């Protein structure tokens, strides 16, 4: 079998590829001519018989861009023991520690960044998928549908806005009516409840701005929207209030093992001695697996660019639109759609294409132009000038294209939660529940597990005064005058809300962190007016100097030296 794969790879991709079977997976090695060949080889090797593909192929001359690593170095940890060490503070890691905090455990989450949710979990559409797209029987299908069902309660408990808006999957040809049974069958296989087939006039009754090119569509009522950065923060805050610890700017770079067991985990802030390790490091999950000598997959980043439209176009759409045709249905690089968020912005995208760099979030004119041209044409009255901002994210895809949610086969105290790409956000509560179950199974052999009496599933969000009834808002301002001082004029965010974020359970002291918690700076002027004001507030509330306040930690400071204090002169 391996022989046949080897010759196929050589013949159809590149002569220089060597493949080898190791444990239960395939390893590819050699030098090829292009990044595209690396990807093609990876997919060819992804076969049912093997657990995964470790793709070590290289391209000569391809620039090597490293990921972000903290500059900080200290001794916060000195062989600190903990029961569970969770690596990665995205939606998955944060959901896991929240689930684990139901039990009396010493839980520690580490993330290399200055805040949680700095990678995939703040760079997505925030859509809670209905569970139609994943292949029936796959992990994706199972966890997505289950996650969707669990999401509403989670959002309610944590006071994160959540709205079940439904998806219209739109077609440009009437002949899709002929194959509607196929869609119904898929929905049934994936247990996602009833879906409807609709002709254009019916769609128009519900979404009056859909354009003429749409002929029919499928409606899936269970799709929901929920802001992903807010949810990630809420989960982490709730876990912290229930006793879990979160350590930021903490980068895992080495593990020490004794036989099949991880003994010690090394970070730039010292060493940790965990009973169980959960690997949910997103785009770097393969690196963490490698540190534990249990790598059986490679994450290849699939980029998606996203554009966000001004709230003043909120009336144009009240749901999620997904745009499908037979040609792109099976492709991994389809992409697109329109998502109306709870805040009233329409999110356009994401696109999907392979590129080599895990943390390169640059956008390009070509892709953005295509994305806008394609998607905006489905709704009347949307144009490029409605775009207030755009961004990109990279999906943590494996060549098998399914979630990896399992206890390691070779390391007794390691759990992998990897390859969590879309619909990873939608699936997060179900994944967390499973990860928690696995962790308890391992821990039970080492300790007695009891319930955490302090556990409270509820978390109070920072008040969004804008959304309060008038008299209540006035009362709040009378109690705290800062709630009456509007700082972010586009999103109507007050000084009080920003101060609350700065002093929240996971303190927000960078501009991006404040943005993720309050929306301050997220509106149409993109922080043009409020950035200096928010910086003043950070300065007042923390011991940071103006020059030390940053966009997202590390070297991303906004200002250089003061122009008022000249060198060599004391300011008195």
């Amino acid at each position: 079998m391996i022989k046949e794969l080897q010759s196929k790879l050589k013949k159809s991709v590149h002569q220089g590829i060597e493949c080898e079977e190791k444990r239960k997976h395939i390893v590819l090695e050699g030098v090829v001519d292009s990044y595209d060949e690396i990807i093609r080889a990876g997919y060819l090797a992804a076969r049912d018989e093997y657990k995964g593909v470790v793709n070590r192929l290289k391209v000569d001359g391809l620039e090597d861009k490293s990921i972000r690593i903290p500059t900080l170095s200290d001794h916060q940890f000195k062989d600190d023991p903990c029961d569970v060490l969770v690596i990665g503070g995205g939606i998955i890691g944060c959901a896991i520690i929240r689930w684990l905090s139901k039990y009396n455990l010493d839980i520690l989450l580490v993330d290399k960044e200055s805040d949680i949710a700095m990678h995939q979990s703040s760079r997505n559409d925030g859509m809670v998928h209905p569970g139609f797209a994943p292949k029936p029987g796959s992990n994706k299908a199972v966890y997505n549908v289950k996650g969707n069902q669990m999401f509403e309660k989670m959002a309610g408990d944590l006071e994160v806005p959540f709205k079940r808006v439904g998806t219209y999957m739109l077609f440009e040809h009437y002949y899709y009516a002929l194959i509607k049974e196929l869609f119904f069958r898929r929905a049934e296989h994936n247990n996602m409840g009833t879906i409807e087939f609709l002709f254009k006039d019916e769609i128009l009754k519900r979404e009056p701005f859909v354009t003429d090119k749409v002929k029919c569509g499928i409606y899936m009522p269970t799709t929901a929207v929920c802001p992903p950065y807010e949810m990630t923060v809420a989960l982490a805050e709730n876990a912290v209030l229930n006793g879990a610890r979160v350590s930021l700017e903490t980068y895992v770079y080495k593990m020490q093992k004794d036989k099949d067991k991880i003994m010690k985990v090394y970070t730039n802030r010292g060493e940790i001695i965990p009973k169980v390790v959960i690997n949910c490091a997103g785009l770097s999950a393969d690196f963490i697996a490698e540190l534990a000598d249990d790598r059986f997959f490679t994450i290849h980043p699939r980029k998606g660019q996203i554009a966000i439209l001004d709230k003043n176009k909120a009336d144009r759409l009240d749901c999620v639109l997904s745009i499908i045709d037979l040609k792109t249905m099976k492709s991994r690089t389809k992409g697109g759609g329109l998502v109306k968020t709870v805040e009233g912005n329409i999110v356009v995208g994401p696109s999907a294409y392979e590129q080599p760099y895990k943390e390169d979030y640059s956008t390009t004119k070509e892709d953005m132009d295509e994305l806008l041209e394609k998607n905006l044409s489905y709704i009347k009255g949307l144009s490029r000038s409605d775009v207030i901002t755009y961004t990109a994210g990279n999906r943590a895809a494996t060549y098998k294209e399914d979630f990896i949610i399992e206890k390691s086969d070779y390391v007794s105290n390691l759990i992998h939660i990897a390859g969590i790409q879309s619909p990873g956000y939608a699936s997060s509560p179900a994944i967390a529940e499973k990860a928690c179950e696995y962790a308890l199974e391992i821990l039970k052999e080492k300790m007695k597990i009891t319930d955490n009496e302090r556990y409270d599933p509820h978390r109070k969000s920072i008040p969004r005064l804008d959304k309060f009834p008038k008299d209540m808002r006035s009362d709040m301002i009378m109690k705290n005058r800062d709630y009456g001082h509007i700082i972010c004029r586009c999103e109507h965010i007050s000084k009080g809300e920003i101060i609350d974020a700065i002093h929240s359970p996971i303190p927000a002291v960078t501009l991006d962190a404040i943005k993720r918690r309050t929306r301050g700076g997220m509106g149409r002027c993109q922080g043009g007016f409020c950035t200096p004001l928010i910086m003043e507030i950070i300065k007042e509330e923390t011991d940071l100097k103006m020059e030390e306040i940053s966009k997202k930690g590390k070297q991303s400071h906004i200002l250089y030296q003061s122009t008022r204090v000249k060198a060599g002169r004391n300011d008195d």
Partner: protein
Amino acid sequence: MMIEYDVCVIGAGPAGLSAALQLKDCSVCMIEREEKPGGILKQCIHDGFGLIKFNAEMTGPEYSQRYIDELMTTDIKVYMKTFVSNINYICEKNIQIELINPEQGMFQIKVKSIIFATGCRERTAKQVFIHGERPAGILTAGSAQYFVNVSGYLPCRKCVILGSGDIGLIMARRLTLEGAEVLGVYEIKDSSSGLQRNIAQCLEDFNIPLHLSETVIKTHGDDRLTGVTVAKVDSEFNVIKGTEKYLECDGLILSVGLIPENELTKEMGIQIDSHTKGPIVDQNMMTSLKGVFACGNQVHVNDLVDYVSKSGEIAAKACMEYIKGNDYEKEDIRIKFDDSEFLYIVPQVINRQNENMNVTFFFRSSRKLRDAYVKIEINDKEIVNKSYIALNPPELQVIDIALGTLSQHDNIKFKINQR
């Protein structure tokens, strides 16, 4: 209980201040969301303000201080740090405004008339579709101006300025004086969008190059900006392959245009002009809603503050008449012009029912022209023919005329002819 005033002026920049001070014999309140009055002038510490109005060269703060001092002697109620959350135009002379501030919480006032003087905001990097990475160090010229002049900090040490708007030009000089290096100003069009005076005084005097038909196509850097890629463009603004150049810098400062702050007016359903992006006004600065006036940069972006103040005075005068009950029906005649000749003309409409037919027109030509005539025709009959040595889009032009009585179907048209 709702507090009542005759007029509410929203915005305490130069437009709002001059409007408020002109309002006599009526009760007036002013609403300003910032902590101090003065509007954007607070951060414009260079001189060149007041040339026309006071025949003196003043800085921005000096100019506005004259008005603020006078304001202190009046009994105008000024609500500072106060944010307008909603405006409800119930009917003529009954408008309810919902406000928020730290002292009173949420409260409402009732007024007969509103003068909008909310100024403008800057176009952002995203609105001009700059691509690449999104590190710290990319900011608008106005934010840079605030950091340097108000906060007292340098936002960059070596920068590129994109767009040749006036604030960008002024910041090129300001940053140079503060010890930063300005590599150049890049302008995608083939001519500058700033005033000639600023190009001479802010760029040429400091040997800062102005690159026309060149733009920034990519930003680089993860945490802090490390550089930008610039390239030449053709007449359709397409990048000319092979002209890309990497410039190392830690700041990208954008001066790519200003847009009237039209959120509130839009929400009220007031008609917006697609050319100016501000409300459509008549010769009295009245918007499409009766009793609602607008002035200053909220109507169109001025290059001289003196004109801003003037528009505030016009609005105030008409507003007083309106309050007094010297009422007139709205019967607007739209000014016609060709987009290929003019960027915009303000006022956009003339109300023929009004007594005041002395109209001050502001306009910008759509391109650079030498030896040109601007003509105003009523029903193809020429009533104005003014010659200009040069017309340039960045330079706002003014024509004062006395229009006679107009009838319903009169056709008013602006034209440009070249010699």
